[in-house]
């Protein structure tokens, strides 16, 4: 017989049918349908047959849905009931599970917010991918001169728009409503920026009032951020109001924009760049000497940046050639990368490695929480063995049981997720303070994000629940119902490995905290080469009242017996204001420049190793001579540095307006930058008009009285400017606040990680103690001591914590070594942080376990043996 050839129904249709059509065993109905299909096919052709088949499917779907949903709801109702009963029956364990998951998810959420924030910086501008900062190709010179931006906008056609920013600190802004002096309001604007009107074409700062596009056209216009507008005007309409800036110029408000967020730029008030020319002189605006502007260009889409950068370099060289020989090369740096790049102040910084470290920590803590869940559920599996057995006997499939247990863990994690949202909103302010960000939960108001998050929580539930679900559903009903003890212990090794894993993570975090703190301590105590204590520091850059009467101000201050000395400078430890190049024997080298007066060395306790200090007796000292530090002498390779002549041509923006500068002395090296850096060659010059920082060395005692005198003197000279001062040691220490923040944050994480791990350990320990009640009872009757039993119970756990240590040490060592490599001066890691972390972890684990162990060990054996 030849094999009959049949035209079969489409595979897909058949598959769907087999799924939706109520079956009578072995897919007989599918077979029926196929027979009919073939018949229709033979009599009426494929079209009719297919149509008929699909219609059959369509008709059976409503019934299918009705059927399915009904029974599912019945089952879900039942499972839910069982889940809730289980939660209530074992309140302690349930609480531990909830607490762990909630903490884990909550922390994860906050860190996610942080990471999302950091990665979204400057991406909201409409043209963010087309905006570039003009800077030096060497990566150090990040600012440009005013003329550069001007030349680019006039000559480079690729640059669609050019915008320049000049950032200034601490401007005074005064508002006098209706010219009524009694209602006058003065506020200090911390970040004040001058910029071109094109700023709003390049960047997309959302406007609140006024039209930003025309806002900076008028040279006496001001654009405020919302918070400044509110501080000045309250609920009044700010547009058109007149403000006085630095007690000198009157401006009017033309627009208000939203407070800056998610951008590296930092300013509260924008003023038109054009007017800066009116104030400081047009020549300064065309200058190519003062390199202190941030210049941004907007390029056409997908444009080759190197070509444009080359053009800018060429343009610059052409313009400047006749004046001097230059070898400066320009580069275009993408806006979106600026936040994470290193560079100047006046802007917000991000730390990309930190973002990744945080992400890793968040994931780890979540894993710790999941492991807890997993651990407790499997450990307590035997408690539910009967349930599984009965369900299987009455016909439940393994698949159904897996879904039931998975459903339970998903329910757990969803509830935890809700609690975590509450927790995160509670702790977010503290987290913000720690990280110096202004994150908000608003992000979760977006339904899509919320949905994704809920899906994520469900995923956590699945991850945490899949193993217990598979484990529980695998019980064989015969053995379970016969009352054989299911081995909660069988998977013991697996669970203990998980516990060690949790502790490994926690131990790494503890070690990290200890070492970061150790490094900070090292920095604090390191001899910086200068005295930082008891120096009061003030700035008078714009305060002409004092700046023009420096000597008188100083004399007045010195009248007080507790004031030892006063010096004026440009540059202080931690703030180098000027870098210049000098030539010696045909080689050009760069130096950090501190422009000071002769008292500077005395105030900061700097030591002269050779030659002499600047002297007021010698009229040729100011701006014709310099002092070098040891690093500079080493770099020059000078045997006899005093008397050496250094040359430069760059007279325009220099502290030394002469071509030849004579070295008159050598100063012992001191750490004028952070300890991240080696001591770089530097020189002191003396040029009185440049000095606008005041450092006052005061006595250690009666400091408030001394400060009062300084303030009184300040007010006498300059009533219009608020008295604002810092202590140098605070300023120096604050350079390490990033590190300190890191240490504190990691410290918190370590504590939380340990806490969550301990929750799990506690649960597991109490469970195992419970399981061994009978054993302990028998042992006691046979004469075991309480201590003996304690040792017995603790031994197991301590073994695994020790194992965790062994794994954690090399990992921590590697990671921390990497972190320390960022410092030029670093503490050695040493063995102590490791040992301390080990002891802490072990002690905490012991304490956690001991509560249960002691309870079990001291229980009366009569009670423990009678319980059956």
């Amino acid at each position, binding site marked *: 017989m030849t094999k009959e050839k049949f035209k079969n129904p489409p595979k897909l249709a058949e598959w769907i049918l087999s799924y939706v059509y109520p079956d009578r065993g072995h897919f007989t109905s599918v077979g029926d349908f196929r027979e009919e299909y073939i018949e229709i096919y033979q009599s009426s052709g494929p079209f009719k047959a297919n149509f008929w088949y699909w219609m059959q499917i369509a008709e*059976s779907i409503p019934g299918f849905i009705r059927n399915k949903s009904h029974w599912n709801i019945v089952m879900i109702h039942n499972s839910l009931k069982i889940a809730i009963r289980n939660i209530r029956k074992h309140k302690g364990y349930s609480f531990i599970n909830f607490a762990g998951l909630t903490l884990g998810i909550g922390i994860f959420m906050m860190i996610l917010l942080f990471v999302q924030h950091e990665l979204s910086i400057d991406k909201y501008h409409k043209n963010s991918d087309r905006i570039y900062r003009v800077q030096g190709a060497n990566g150090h010179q990040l600012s440009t001169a005013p003329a550069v931006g001007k030349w680019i906008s006039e000559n480079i056609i690729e640059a669609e728009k050019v915008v320049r920013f000049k950032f200034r600190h601490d401007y005074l802004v005064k508002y006098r409503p209706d010219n009524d002096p009694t209602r006058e309001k003065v506020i200090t604007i911390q970040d004040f920026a001058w910029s071109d009107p094109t700023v709003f074409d390049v960047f997309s700062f959302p406007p609140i009032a006024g039209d930003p596009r025309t806002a900076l056209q008028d040279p006496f216009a001001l654009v405020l951020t919302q918070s400044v507008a509110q501080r000045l005007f309250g609920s009044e309409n700010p547009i058109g109001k007149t403000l006085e800036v630095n007690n000198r110029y009157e401006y009017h408000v033309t627009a208000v924009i939203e407070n800056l967020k998610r951008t590296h730029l930092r300013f509260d008030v924008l003023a038109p760049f054009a007017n800066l020319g009116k104030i400081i002189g047009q020549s300064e605006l065309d200058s190519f000497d003062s390199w202190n502007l941030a210049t941004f260009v907007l390029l056409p889409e997908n444009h080759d940046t190197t070509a444009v950068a080359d053009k800018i370099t060429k343009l610059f060289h052409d313009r400047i050639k006749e004046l001097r020989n230059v070898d400066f090369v320009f580069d275009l740096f993408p806006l979106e990368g600026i936040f994470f790049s290193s560079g100047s102040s006046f802007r917000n910084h991000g730390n990309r490695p930190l973002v990744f470290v945080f992400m890793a920590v968040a994931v780890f803590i979540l894993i710790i929480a999941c492991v807890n869940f997993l651990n407790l559920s499997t450990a307590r599996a035997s408690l539910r063995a009967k349930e599984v057995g009965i369900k299987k006997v009455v016909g439940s499939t393994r698949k159904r049981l897996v879904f039931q247990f998975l459903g339970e863990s998903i329910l757990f994690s969803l509830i935890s997720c809700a609690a975590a949202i509450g927790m995160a909103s509670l702790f977010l302010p503290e987290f913000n303070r720690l990280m110096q960000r202004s994150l908000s939960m608003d992000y979760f108001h977006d339904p899509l994000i919320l949905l994704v998050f809920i899906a994520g929580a469900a995923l956590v539930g699945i991850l945490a629940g899949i193993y217990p679900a598979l484990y529980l559903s695998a019980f064989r009903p015969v053995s379970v119902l016969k009352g054989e003890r299911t081995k909660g212990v069988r998977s013991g090794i697996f669970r203990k490995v998980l516990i060690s894993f949790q502790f490994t993570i926690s131990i790494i975090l503890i070690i990290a905290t200890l070492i970061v703190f150790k490094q900070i301590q090292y920095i604090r105590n390191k001899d910086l080469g200068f005295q930082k204590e008891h120096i009061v520091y003030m700035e008078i850059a714009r305060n002409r009242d004092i700046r023009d009467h420096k000597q008188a101000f100083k004399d007045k201050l010195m009248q007080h017996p507790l004031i030892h000395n006063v010096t004026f400078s440009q540059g202080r430890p931690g703030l180098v204001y000027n870098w210049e190049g000098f030539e010696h024997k045909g080689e050009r080298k760069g130096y950090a420049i501190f422009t000071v007066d002769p008292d500077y060395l005395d105030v900061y306790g700097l030591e002269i190793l050779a030659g002499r200090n600047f002297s007021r007796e010698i009229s040729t000292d100011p701006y014709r001579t310099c002092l070098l530090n040891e690093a500079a002498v080493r770099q020059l390779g000078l045997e006899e540095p005093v008397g050496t002549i250094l040359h430069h041509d760059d007279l325009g923006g220099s502290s030394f307006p002469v071509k030849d500068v004579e070295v008159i002395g050598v100063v012992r090296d001191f750490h004028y930058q952070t300890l991240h850096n080696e001591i770089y060659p530097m020189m002191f010059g003396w040029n009185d008009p440049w000095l606008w920082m005041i450092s006052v060395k005061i006595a250690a005692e009666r400091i408030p009285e001394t400060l009062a005198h300084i303030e009184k003197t300040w007010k006498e000279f300059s009533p219009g400017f608020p008295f604002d001062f810092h202590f140098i040691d605070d300023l120096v220490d604050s350079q390490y606040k990033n590190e300190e923040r890191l240490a504190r944050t990691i410290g918190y994480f370590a504590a939380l990680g340990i806490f969550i791990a301990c929750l799990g350990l506690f649960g597991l320990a109490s469970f195992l103690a419970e399981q061994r009640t009978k054993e302990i009872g028998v042992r006691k009757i046979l004469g075991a001591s309480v201590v003996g039993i304690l040792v017995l119970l603790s031994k197991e756990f301590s073994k695994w914590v020790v194992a965790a240590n062994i794994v954690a040490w090399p990992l921590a060592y590697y990671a921390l070594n990497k972190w320390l490599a960022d410092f030029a001066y670093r503490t050695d890691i040493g063995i102590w942080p490791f040992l301390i972390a080990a002891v802490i972890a072990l002690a905490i684990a012991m304490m956690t376990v001991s509560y249960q162990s002691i309870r079990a060990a001291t229980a009366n054996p009569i009670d423990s043996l009678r319980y059956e």
Partner: protein
Amino acid sequence: MGKTRMKFLSRPEELVLLAVWRLKKNAYCVPIKKQLVKYTGHDWSFGAVYDPLDRLEKKGLLESYLSDPVAKRGGKRKRIYKLTPSGIMALIEIKTITDEVWDGIPVKVLKEEL
């Protein structure tokens, strides 16, 4: 006849029961459906056939077993139905009662009343 009370069957049930008897060893869904279509002129869906089959089986008038896999059906088995003794009893009963009730009423007489 000492009257035991009759178990009422619905008309589709009656037809299906009869079809199963007629088909003997080949009484599974597809031919049953064909018979029903032939007798009634209606288009019967599988569901409409399975429904009375399931009910009759539940009432104990039918029983079913699975055949060997059949290539034409994509390797699927047939569920073949068979009358139980009470199924046969039911057919006898229906036949008897129907005959009794219709006794002496030829179709011709009914047609005359049109």
